[in-house]
């Protein structure tokens, strides 16, 4: 199976504190791999382990996003490609999807594109879906489990996690799939893999390499602009510790939750 995993480098939003506003964090805070994407990589690796083939990571970002790709390579991906070009700056989800879709077509034939359900910074939940549309591939979002996959027959059946329950969907391959964290437990890269990944070359593709015009990508190709990012207002919270034995405190907790109409 030829699998392509879309990953993104994001600010570590867990580091958000009262001392750092959103734009500062976006501009200069510590960077991590988008946590949802780790599940996407893990699922790609598991499919490769089960059915053979390869996993290629694709990331659109600034040159230092290569660190994120190295993390994914250390998890076990075979190859990685970085799309990086100053012209890509300020792109909305559709402009980004255009670049990603062009890169996927440049990579060539594929069976499955996997992405995290969303990114923790933009939070659009849209990019991978737009990639599917641009590629005219089947679109499977919020996948919590792959129930069956047949690379030879080019079919896949997945379970999608919806707010109200689970939905089983079958489709043809190739498809673009986004995953939720229920799907697996991402592996931790070993030092040996980190060392191997460090030695791997990561090609960097520009907008021109993708055969796109400057006007189709980045801020120039976008409808949406980010003018300001604010922290959510802090909420006053009260902490109460329920005393007593486990049984007593559990009972007291249930009573309180019922009284507050939470359960």
């Amino acid at each position, binding site marked *: 199976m030829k699998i392509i995993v879309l990953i993104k480098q994001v600010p570590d939003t*867990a580091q958000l*504190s009262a001392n750092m506003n959103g734009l500062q964090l976006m501009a200069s805070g*510590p960077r991590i791999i988008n946590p949802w994407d780790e599940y996407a990589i893990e699922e790609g690796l598991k499919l490769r382990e089960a059915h053979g083939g390869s996993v290629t990571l694709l990331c659109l970002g600034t040159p230092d996003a290569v660190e994120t790709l190295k993390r994914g390579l250390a998890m076990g991906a075979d190859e990685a490609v970085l799309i990086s070009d100053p012209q890509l700056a300020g792109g909305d989800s559709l402009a980004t999807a255009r670049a990603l879709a062009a890169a996927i077509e440049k990579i060539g034939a594929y069976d499955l594109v996997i992405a995290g359900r969303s990114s923790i910074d933009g939070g659009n939940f849209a990019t991978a879906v737009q990639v599917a549309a641009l590629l005219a591939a089947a679109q499977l979002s919020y996948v919590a489990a792959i129930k069956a996959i047949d690379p030879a027959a080019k079919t896949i059946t997945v379970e999608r996690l919806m707010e109200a329950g689970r939905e089983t969907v079958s489709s043809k391959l190739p498809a673009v799939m986004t995953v939720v964290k229920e799907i697996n437990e991402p592996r931790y890269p070993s*030092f040996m893999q980190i060392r191997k990944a460090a030695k791997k070359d990561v090609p960097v593709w520009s907008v021109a390499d993708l055969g796109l015009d400057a006007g189709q990508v980045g801020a120039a190709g976008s409808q949406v602009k980010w003018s300001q990012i604010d922290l959510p207002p802090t909420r006053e919270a009260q902490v109460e510790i329920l005393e007593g034995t486990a049984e007593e405190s559990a009972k007291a907790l249930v009573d309180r939750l019922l009284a507050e109409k939470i359960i």
Partner: protein
Amino acid sequence: MLSLVEKILFVIAVGVSLYYTQVTFSKMITVVQRGQGQLNLDHLPPRLWTALRALVNQGGIIRHRPVTSLFHYFIAWGFIYYVLVNAVDVLEAFIPGFHIPGMLGNLYRLLADLLTVAVLIGMTYFLVRRFLVNSAVLTIRDNVTLHPKAAAGMRTDSLLVGGFIWGHVGFRFLGTAFLVALHGGDPWQPFASLLAAPLDGLPETAQLIGWHTSWWLAIGLILAFVPYFPYTKHAHLFVGPFNFMTRPPRRALGALDPINFEDESIEQFGATTLTDLSQTQLVDPFACIMCSRCQEVCPAYTTGKPLSPSALEINKRYHIWDQMAALAGGEADESPLLEWAISPSAVWACTTCGACLDVCPVGNKPMFDIMDIRRSQVLMASEFPAELKGAFTGLERNGNPWQMTDDRLAWTKPLDFAVPTVEENPDFEVLFWVGCAGAFDPGAQEIARATATVLHAAGVNFAVLGNDETCTGDTARRAGNEYLFYEMALGNIETLNAVGADQKKIVASCPHCLHTIGTEYADYGGHYTVLHHTQLISELIGAGRLKLNGSNQLEKVAFHDPCYLGRHNGVYDAPRLTLAQAGATLLEMDRNRSDSFCCGAGGAQMWKEEEHGSAAVNETRFAEGRATGADVLAVGCPFCARMMTDANTNAGSPMVVQDVAQLVAAALQK
């Protein structure tokens, strides 16, 4: 005197024995050399002294199992003396009229006589203990991985060794009795004379034949047994002292060896197979006498987990014996340690408390094997308990295993004085290393506040690193993630040196931080003087810098020794002295000081679920504390505090669990 024919036969027998000894010992040595690194043979005179001490005091066995140890001393000292006895016996048989003359000879024979009986009594004790009483301490529980040949092999080996000792010493005793009968009595050999009495009536020829036969059997057994040594646990008698002698020097009992991550030619990290272990770790199975003293003190084994340090060494031994020729011949041994030496659950059950290292009479190092296997599991295979991933990610991204992103100074807010950072007080004399627990764990924050309060009350000029502090990396290191530890160590050393902490004192209320910064950072160029807070507080009280209430509510207090303060770093008195100075009446748990029993949190256990067993380590230890009748269980480690507090809560809070610093802070005169 031997006849000429006998003398010729004896010389031939010695030649044959020496030849086969050379063959089998070479194999043993070659197998050991299949391990990594080198045995330590530098500074030979002090090393020989170490070996001699281990030989004579038997690795300090008397500390535990006193009765058994006493009988063992009988055998061991008897055997050491028998080197002389055997030499004299051969000389007497070869050189006409040879004997040690005068009073010296009398004393020599008296001691030989007494020790002969001592060895026979001792050996009888051990045979009865193993084969008639079937002592429980010599068995290994079913849930522990054990080599298929080990259970029966251990008994056979014990019987062989017992038979050999009984045969050798017994026939020498009988031969001496024949000699005494021939010579008409010897007041300096009372026991041999006793045995000679019934032989007195025999014709002289019979007595002579009796002596010749006994002599040949006694000496012959030695000649036959010596080449066999590498295939029996009896080799412990010389491999044990040799093991102590050739161990690598360590700054502390369980200080781990660094890995060179810069050397790209290294392809193996930690131990996957037997030959990935160091040479000194391959001496261990040859030294092991299978006494299972390590198993008896292991917090994992004694609470029902599938980990027995002795089973690990025994498995290594039987694995080696099974393929001694192949290993000695340089053949690759691909079978993973995790398949035959120890189970994965056992590897992750170790609390790294170091009790096995401390107790082993032959200098074995099972804890280091376990750490090497963890390293291989994390650095090579990336297979480890899933919960540890959270701790690793927390260390990587947030610098602490709790994955907390809060302000590391939040704990200071309730204090009525300011705790200065190194920026605010660059001329500090003491750097207070708060630790992640002190910064983030609500219980440990209390300990950090109490420590700061005491330092403040004594007028100590101190500062903290605040948000520049990160975890020392102990959690990662004990969990096998040496690479993460390495990165954290380098980062912390840079931070510490930048504020001049290498020129000043560091005080830590966490023994894990104390151990890592004080003893393990030295391998990475970080040399620091680190005190446990109880050491500094005790000094301050001694210097009259703290005014404590004469009458306070501290009555009966039992102190739980943290492994990384006590056993690993030898600090036992400071916390007790501090408690006494604060007005406590000290009670001791049955297992205290170097025999202390782990709280269950060490070795990265804090960050994972306890392996499946029959009891929880913390509750086992807490019950011991409670059995002292003390009101207060005093601790000196934030992780011990957490574990003992949890056990106390589960038991319905019959005790007060507090850190020494909290008890001192409460006793401060307002």
